[in-house]
């Protein structure tokens, strides 16, 4: 069966590739949605923090001999801690203010972080190879699936599900949600709300860094790798509905697939298609696909 004179075999391959990219979008937009939902901050530095994840993995491997698997755990923690510091020293002063200020502050931070990495490591990027245990691939008949890509999908989905479960289904998550809706009341019940908010930002940032480590073996590790991605991930979050955890995950996956298909039908538009969808969605459902109207 041929669609657009392209054999269906190819379509399967493209769907799978789209899903893999969607998994990246899902992890990134999940972090962004989490931060927005709980802190009311639009974290423009998310792309830079993703880049930091990839870069620290490379630095760890090159200078300290830290292997991929250790980096996958360690790097998100380290970057998460930098996030905690940012939240404690800067973001916490902005909660009562317009969204705009959070966006501008993190935009500035992104410029500083990217600029520093660029200054010290140049722009060409660094090689980071796939860990030996995940080299090679499997022939699925319709395409050759690299083992590493398969791992990316599995790891992303596990992390996404874990996060969703924590926030929507556990007591900690319930405190967190309550804390953002009515901080004074929660505080009165003896919950340390500021601490929870701080940790939430740290976790969101750690998710970005996690995606960065996952990306290191696939993309060139270079200072600007996150700066164009961030705009797309924003669009994903907005389409999903700002602050909706499930929305971010589902939309991330779906848009990865849509983008993948566009790459076959009309490649030049593949970077624009998401914005077209965004406009249409926002006009029909102002709060996004999974968002609740206020």
């Amino acid at each position, binding site marked *: 069966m041929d669609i657009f004179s392209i054999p269906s075999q190819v379509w399967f391959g493209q769907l799978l590739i789209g899903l893999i990219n969607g998994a990246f979008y899902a992890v990134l937009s999940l972090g962004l949605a989490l931060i927005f939902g709980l802190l009311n901050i639009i974290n423009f530095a998310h792309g830079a923090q993703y880049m930091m994840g990839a870069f620290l993995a490379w630095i760890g491997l090159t200078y300290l001999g830290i292997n991929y698997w250790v980096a996958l755990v360690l790097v998100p923690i380290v970057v998460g801690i930098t996030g905690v510091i940012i939240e404690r020293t800067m973001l916490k002063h902005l909660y009562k203010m317009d969204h705009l200020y959070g966006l501008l502050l993190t935009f500035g931070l992104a410029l500083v972080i990217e600029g520093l990495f660029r200054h010290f490591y140049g722009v060409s990027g660094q090689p980071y190879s796939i860990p030996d245990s995940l080299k090679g691939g499997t022939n699925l008949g319709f395409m050759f699936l690299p083992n590493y890509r398969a791992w990316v999908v599995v790891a992303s989905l596990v992390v996404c599900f874990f996060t969703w479960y924590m926030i929507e289904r556990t007591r900690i998550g319930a405190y967190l949600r309550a804390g953002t809706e009515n901080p004074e009341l929660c505080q009165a019940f003896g919950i340390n709300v500021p601490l929870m908010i701080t940790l939430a930002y740290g976790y969101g940032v750690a998710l970005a860094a996690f995606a960065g480590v996952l990306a290191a073996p696939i993309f060139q590790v270079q200072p600007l790798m996150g700066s164009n991605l961030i705009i797309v991930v924003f669009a994903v979050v*907005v389409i999903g509905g700002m602050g909706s955890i499930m929305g971010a995950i589902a939309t991330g996956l779906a848009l990865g697939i849509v983008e993948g298909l566009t790459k076959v039908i009309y490649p030049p538009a593949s970077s*624009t298609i998401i914005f077209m969808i965004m406009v249409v969605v926002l006009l029909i459902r102002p709060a996004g696909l999974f968002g609740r109207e206020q």
Partner: protein
Amino acid sequence: MSINRILFWFTLAVLALTAPFMVYPVFLMKALCFALFAAAFNLLLGYAGLLSFGHAAFLGTAAYLTGYTVKDWGLTPELGILLGTVAAGALGFVFGALAIRRQGIYFAMITLALSQMIFFLAVQMPFTGGEDGLQAVPRGYLFGFIDLNDNLSMYYFVLTIFVLGVGLIYRTVHSPFGQVLTAIKENEPRAISLGYQVDRYKLLAFVLSAALAGLAGATKTLVLQLASLSDVHWHMSGEVVLMTLLGGMGTQAGPLVGAVLVVGLQNYLADLGSWVTIITGGIFVTCVLLFRRGIVGELRALWKRSF
């Protein structure tokens, strides 16, 4: 008008008229264009409370159209600029009509998304020259006889456009229309209950802002004789936010000060290489944390406190 005020305006006028003899005129013209761009943006953000993240679309559309029509159709500079401005205004109408139905961050995102489409078109359409840009646009003769290739006459032409543009913004802000905009910004439901057709006001403000941004872009094309993709890139939309914030949003002079500073930074720190981005980012962070009112806003507050 008090003596002090008259003196102030007089000094300003003398400065503006003699500036090209002290500072390099092309730099001044570029700064004036961006100042007008930032002022147009501020009309929307500072007075109507609408954060557009897609203003590069208007600047860039006008820049390309003016460049193309002047270069390939042989339009005179004033007609080219007029065409660019009108086109930006028309585009503003479309963007505005779609975007004003949403608020806050959603408004910003819709404008961003729409401007990304304009960027896409700028890459795709053959007349823009893709990443090579639209080059070698002639400055031509104003009204057929003033030679704009002379930097000095070009400067006074740009200064005139700038004064007219900023004057229009000033009039708008201080008109009943401007008062209503501020009322909407401060409390939209109240404005609605007072019987104002809020959407219509917002749309008009949006179109005006877009057209003036287009005017700035069209003029810039003639000054620098080129239009390129960075004019329509979202970084440009971010830059204008920086200018406005740095100078002080919601103040008349703020965006102008901010624009001159940012353009100056780009031009005179250019030999610092990668530090330019780091410094720009640092300024952003400092502004948000310490000088939220921007330079002009803070100065004004200081003035009020001390006197």
